[in-house]
């Protein structure tokens, strides 16, 4: 499933984007090689290389020739981390699905939804202390009351309240900041 974004957007290339063209020609080969070594997979490297250039286009940045490599590598590193994280979440999701009896297995649509929701939640809760994350999950997903959560996590009731404030604040900031 290789992306055709660059070629399909070609008709509406404007002056600001034009430099990407040269950038793409000059740097794609080594970027692809770099990604292939990192990921060990040609197709993924192909896709991520496209993604890197899409980011450059979206950033609408003028890229100086002597900074191109550094910029592309920075973007690529970020994407590789995102990608590995996404793949790991996919793996966790597969493991979860395998544990669900077949009759209760969600439809393919529901599966895509659930995975997406998981990726989103992971993003929202990123960087939170483990107990704040656990409190949020126990409250929202398991439906436990704060006294139950306090007992489960072996913390005070007011700590649970603080964890919840902290977790929700992080979620809100991740979406609306």
């Amino acid at each position, binding site marked *: *499933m290789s*992306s*055709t*974004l660059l070629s*399909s*957007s070609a008709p509406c290339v404007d002056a600001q984007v034009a430099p990407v063209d040269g950038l793409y020609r000059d740097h794609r080969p080594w970027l692809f090689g770099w990604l292939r070594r990192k*990921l*060990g*997979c040609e197709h993924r490297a192909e896709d991520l290389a496209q*993604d890197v250039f*899409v980011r450059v286009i*979206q950033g609408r940045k003028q890229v100086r020739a002597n900074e191109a490599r550094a910029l592309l590598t920075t973007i690529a590193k970020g994407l590789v981390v*995102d*990608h590995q994280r996404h*793949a*790991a*979440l*996919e*793996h*966790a*999701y*597969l493991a*979860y699905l395998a*544990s669900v009896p077949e009759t209760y297995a969600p439809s*393919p*649509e*529901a599966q*895509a*939804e*659930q*995975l*997406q*929701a*998981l990726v*989103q*939640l*992971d993003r*929202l*809760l*990123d960087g939170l*202390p*483990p107990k704040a*994350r656990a409190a949020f*999950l126990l*409250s*929202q*997903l*398991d*439906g436990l*009351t*704060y*006294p*139950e959560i306090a007992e489960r996590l072996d913390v005070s009731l007011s700590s649970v*309240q603080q964890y*919840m404030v902290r977790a*929700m*604040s992080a*979620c*809100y900031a991740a*979406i609306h900041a």
Partner: protein
Amino acid sequence: MPDALNLKPAAGRSSDAAPSEAVVREAIVWWTRLQSGVADAQARESCRAWIAQDPAHRVAWDRLQDIGRDARRVPAALAHTALNAPASRGRRAALRSLLTVAGVAATGWAGYRHAPWQRLVADYSTRVGERQALALADGLRVTLNSDSAVRVNVSGNVRDIALLRGEMLVQAEPHPGASTLRVDTGDGQLQAERARFDLRRTADGARVGVYEGSVALLRHGVLTQLAAGERLFPAEDGELQRGATDPDRLAWVDGMVVAKEWRLDDFAEHLARQRVGVIRVDPAVGGLRLSGVFPLDDAERALKALEHSLPITVTRHTQYWLQVGPRDA
């Protein structure tokens, strides 16, 4: 967990200005109190009053409710194993090692979605984004839409098809010596002598549209006749409802989609069935209407094309995830 307050969302809230940081902080404190599971009626009443005090309060409150609701789409058991491991750094390391062991990078989501169990028993199936025309027997042709699977038995004079997943267009003509075509729809049985009909399985039931000839549907002991130009689809109460077909709905056979005053979220859902991954439409723009003819196989291109005519912006977060949101002013 049920929402602590049964409040109707305010109309057009997405266009409201963003609440201030102070308001959000207050809203979060209220929200955490009401989520405790031990809040009393008085606390709920006070919270209700706070929300009613100012439209900004309401906006902040609705946003928190949305976050909670989105979070609850993740099954608890899944979240605990996937997200609840200790500290972020450690978690990432743990995830990475998991990855190495399983070699997931090489297969991942796409590989998995392409191999659901139905494919093992189905005679014919299509991958996401793939369509296939099949000549199953004399006078019996089937076109499979994306991500569809059928089990076929056309040996001897038997003509049975079971639609296991997805959608198919069937063209059937009576054939000497062959019995009536029978189609298992998942929650009923369709019979046809001469007909051209479209059948789609969804989570809430099967949908059938007849374009030529006629079909009979036997479902829960009730026989329903359907003539050309008619379709049946499950209504919200689960009962079947009769409507008119629209030949443009069959444009998928040619790899196209014809939208006429469609809601943007319906359109995105339609495209999403043709690709691996998800397309997320911000509710703020989901109700925008659009018309046109679009290619089915390149959702990103189709949606990007709409950026010119609708106040939306399409971004790609990963190769699997397209986000459609309001365009920033």
